[in-house]
């Protein structure tokens, strides 16, 4: 079940690890008589993309664009209303939770707010080791050793095994979230705004860590963020979402240098550049506007 060690990043344009086709998610908006919903709001409205093994796909968009819903559909935390999700060649769109269980180790999620995604009454060692216990992947001693190893890898002191989440800073808590995700040797990580709640100096540390882990473990990553510069930094391909649809999907270099869709160009132009006068709007966005 646990894949073989993946030391290199296969970036040879191989098979997609995950692909979605025409994915749709509706949420009921208002309830009519008999409690049946009459109006539906499409949070995700027919999107298609694929992520090749070892690649990082960025999903960017403003609030309400459907990027977080997409994350929860991909990890099957939400039931799709339509379309297909194909993981490693298998159509998992409507698999039961029970059938999905073996896949849970392979598909992991990292959340925006590390604090609310960690049980405050469990020690870090328990939190990070929990997935191994639930999946019956290791005995107690082995589990402990593995947790310490992973804690060390993400830059946490393994001596802090018995501490509780509140004893850690925001950046360290996100490292706990990352440790919990990688402890099961996943193949796909869906990270939903993983650095948005962190201070700038800590954000850089966590981005570097994610990049290193991805390269070392050969992870496939879906990286969701509202921050266009962060996405550009870490992603190979970028999908721009607006109102539940992907308006543009391209290689990161091309998307940022030559945005094809006016919405992408508008987003890029709005990014304040941390440099003084003369370059307040992105030079690339400005150039793109004239092309």
């Amino acid at each position: 079940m646990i894949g073989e060690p993946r030391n290199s990043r296969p970036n040879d344009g191989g098979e997609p690890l995950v692909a979605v086709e025409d994915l749709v998610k509706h949420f009921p908006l208002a309830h009519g008589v008999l409690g049946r919903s009459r109006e539906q709001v499409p949070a995700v409205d027919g999107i298609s993309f694929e992520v090749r093994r070892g690649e990082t796909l960025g999903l960017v968009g403003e609030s309400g664009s459907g990027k977080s819903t997409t994350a929860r559909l991909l990890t099957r935390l939400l039931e799709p209303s339509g379309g297909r999700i194909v993981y490693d060649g298998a159509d998992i769109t409507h698999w039961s939770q029970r059938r999905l269980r073996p896949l849970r180790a392979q598909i992991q999620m990292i959340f925006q707010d590390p604090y609310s995604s960690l049980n405050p009454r469990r020690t870090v060692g328990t939190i990070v080791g929990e997935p191994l216990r639930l999946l019956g992947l290791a005995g107690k001693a082995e589990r402990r050793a593995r947790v310490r190893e992973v804690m060390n890898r993400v830059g946490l002191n393994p001596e802090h095994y018995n501490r509780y989440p509140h004893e850690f800073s925001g950046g360290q808590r996100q490292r706990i979230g990352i440790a919990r995700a990688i402890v099961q040797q996943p193949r796909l990580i869906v990270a939903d705004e993983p650095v948005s709640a962190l201070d700038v100096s800590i954000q850089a540390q966590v981005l570097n860590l994610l990049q290193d882990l991805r390269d070392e473990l050969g992870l496939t990553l879906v990286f969701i963020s509202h921050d266009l510069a962060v996405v550009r930094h870490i992603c190979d391909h970028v999908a721009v979402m607006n109102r539940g649809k992907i308006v543009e999907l391209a290689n990161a270099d091309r998307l940022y240098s030559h945005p094809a869709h006016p919405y992408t160009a508008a987003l890029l132009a709005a990014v304040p550049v941390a440099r003084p006068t003369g370059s307040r709007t992105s030079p690339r966005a400005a150039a793109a506007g004239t092309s």
Partner: protein
Amino acid sequence: MALLEVRDLSVSFATLDGVVRAVDGVSYELERGRTLGLVGESGSGKSVSALTIIGLTRSPNATIGGQIVLDGRDLVSRSDAELRRIRGKRIAMIFQDPLSSLHPYFRIGVQIVEAIRTHEDVSKRAARLRAIEALEAVGIPRPGRRIDSYPHELSGGMRQRAMLAMALALRPDVLIADEPTTALDVTVQAQVLELIRSLRDEHGIAVLLITHDLGVIAQAADEVAVMYAGRIVEHAPRDTIFESPEHPYTWGLLDSIPHLDAPRGERLRAIQGQPPSLIRASEGCKFFPRCPYQPAPADEIEPELAETTPGHRVRCHLPVEERRRIWRERHGSTLLER
């Protein structure tokens, strides 16, 4: 002369874990028609210093030292009642999350009218007209109808505009904006910053803009104070902060963020370590444990915030020449390209 002057302000809180020195000897000045950006990370003291200006940190466990001078009179030593007449009227503040600063049960117009009538003896009708004017001034479409909306009926950007309208309806001299755009989408952020800028220019308001985002600083501030562990570590005109910063922490902040025009895929130059505890503050330079340039911890004296060129003050032990050399090494080439 400065409109508002913060002199050697210190704010500490007694907690169960010990005394937290949140703000420690901070001085800055706000001038009409100018925006001072206070930049720093969580716990740097940027918000506490601003909250203290309008007396919102006053509590039995807080100790406030130094002076906050408005029109030649100190605010720190004034009574709560006196401060209440200044807060809102002379000095207005807007916050990061407009939804939690607006009352959910009352229409926005009612809330703006209440603010006006608290400070000025005007009729309800006149106050309502002023409220509509204020909503119009901040670019809310159809203000005559929107005035009767509840906060939840407005989008995030519109709510922040409504907060600004409430702040500006009393024609304050000073506007404190604490992370005003952090909760907003980028396109809306750009609009709100532009709005604050034009209000500053039209009404000659002095703006104190608090943010962790250097992009926001670049877009909206005239002058910048960088805070770390309750201290200002660097203070300079905006262009200087970006073109020739001299404090290693400022360098770290600038290099921690990915830029849209930087080469892709390279590792970010992160600041190592964690922000320091404000309870057991170390002697000497507060940034020392994370500073990659300080030779040896020999000096237990904290550096002064010393002027290196007119208007540019830096709190660092490194010799000025050394600092300039390091910055050129880190960034000289990329700056020349531009």
